């Protein structure tokens, strides 16, 4: 296992110490108990503002800790690598960011995340804090049916945290913030693929083996195998495999505008993401869909996995306005 770490046990807390040391103006890392910490916006709680918290396993950096700051999240709860955080963290985060207007829990649809956030919400409400939850489920690789735990929450989560963060900054109510969160989730779809597996530090070896001439299509973000394994293909074909199900599921029509998010899984360099972006632009152009906004980079990752995901978000004026709103976090910054 080749990693820049001190030990599998300390990787999360060491990385949090690094965030604290390099971004003291944006966030503070707060100890919840012996094993757990949370990342809280430097000026939290902001009076009268709905608090936004999210969380999930570590190993997806910059999500979520890298999105804590003005115009995005108020706190993030990092679990062990690929393991949902525990309710204690979510409760502590909820309390830390409640400025009296209630708290939105942004939860990616994985059984672990959902169950832990559920327990935390019960505990927070018992303490008199108003909590609303949005469960993101944008991954078209998984069928939302009785026979699955539902679609996974992936790339849309990042866009949602930004857009809803923009609204919350203006002092909107919890109900309004939760409504916009549902709208963003409804307007976006994603799909991902992997060229290589990744290695959970505590496990010490790759989660799955992938022959040199094969790739996984329809992966999540936890080093899980995907829906199917196929032979390596050109970027143009890979992009087609990801984009077509998204476009069809969203029912994108000629003349519509989207935010195109080409995301790296952690080990894929930017040059390859731009190759995928170029293929995606061709596909959208052929359908007369306009890329009105874009995001290219590794924002929701699976450790050092090589691969990418594509997220398309149908834009209207409201979503565009809050996407463009100022943001200042370690990983996303503009307008200030």
């Amino acid at each position, binding site marked *: 296992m080749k990693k820049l770490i001190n030990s599998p046990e300390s990787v999360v807390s060491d990385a949090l110490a690094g965030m604290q040391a390099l971004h003291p103006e944006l966030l503070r890392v707060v100890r919840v108990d012996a*094993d757990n910490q949370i990342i809280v916006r430097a000026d939290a709680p902001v009076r009268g503002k709905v608090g936004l918290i999210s969380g999930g396993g570590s190993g997806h950096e910059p999500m979520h800790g890298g999105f804590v700051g003005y115009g995005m999240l108020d706190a993030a709860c990092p679990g062990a690598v690929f*393991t*949902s955080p*525990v309710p*204690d963290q979510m409760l502590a985060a909820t309390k830390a960011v409640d400025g009296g207007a209630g708290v939105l829990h942004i939860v990616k649809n994985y059984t672990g995340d959902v169950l832990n956030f559920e327990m935390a919400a019960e505990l927070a409400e018992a303490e008199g804090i108003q909590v609303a939850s949005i469960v993101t489920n944008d991954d078209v690789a998984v069928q939302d049916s009785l026979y699955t735990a539902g679609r996974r929450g992936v790339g849309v989560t990042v866009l949602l945290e930004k857009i809803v963060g923009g609204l919350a900054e203006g002092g909107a109510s919890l109900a309004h913030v939760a409504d916009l969160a549902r709208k963003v989730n409804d307007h976006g779809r994603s799909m991902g693929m992997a060229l290589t597996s990744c290695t*959970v530090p505590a496990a010490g070896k790759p989660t*799955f083996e992938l022959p040199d001439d094969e790739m996984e299509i329809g992966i999540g973000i936890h080093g899980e195998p995907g*829906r199917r394994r196929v032979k390596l293909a050109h970027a143009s074909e890979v992009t087609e495999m990801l984009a077509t199900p998204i476009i069809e599921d969203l029912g994108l029509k000629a003349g519509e505008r989207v935010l195109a998010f080409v995301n790296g899984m952690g080990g894929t360099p930017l040059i390859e993401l731009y190759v995928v972006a170029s293929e995606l632009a061709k596909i959208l152009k052929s359908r007369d869909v306009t890329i009105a906004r874009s995001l290219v980079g590794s924002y929701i990752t699976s450790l050092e996995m090589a691969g990418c995901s594509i997220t398309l978000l149908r834009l209207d004026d409201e979503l565009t306005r809050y996407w463009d709103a100022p943001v200042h976090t370690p990983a996303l910054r503009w307008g200030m």
Partner: protein
Amino acid sequence: MPITPEDTVRWIRRIAVVLHENREYLTQLDSPIGDGDHGINMDRGFKAVIDKLPTVANMDIGSILKTVGTTLVSTVGGASGPLYGTAFLRASMATSGKHELYEADVVHMLEAALEGVKARGKAQPGEKTMVDALTPALAAMKEAEQQNAGLARLLRRGSDAAEAGMKATIPLLATKGRASYLGERSVGHQDPGATSSWLMLKALADTCA
């Protein structure tokens, strides 16, 4: 002889040892159909439980199990944290104030735990989860209780049924948890949560043998 608080503590300690020994195995089971952390999660949780045990060692069984449950909730994370946490919390409610557990108490305790898992996880038998180990275990214990088989035998039959249930998850198509994302690819693999459930029931049978 009934199960005492001392037995309970020995049981929990044994679980911690067994899960630590099976850390790699459970993680390996979680790799093809999950995210390869189940053994790590359970080991982390029961390590924390062991640290907490001295504070409750002299209390009633319900109090011991409550500490196990809250500690698992607070330290395991993932799907198994809230599920096993809820299971032990429900078991603690079923054994609240008790210093002795007889056959019927054990059945009652497992029944409460299983109901907790099913409610929290919205899970039914046949979905390739821990429920598929716990459900036949409960049925076998109930039967043993009706047959007055005695506590040791009751626990052994429960453990054996859990093992069979665990093995029976192999051909199942997962419809809950991470494994459900794999669709047909989930078939042919043993569920890690069912496996840890069996290991815990086996630890109980071994403790009271």
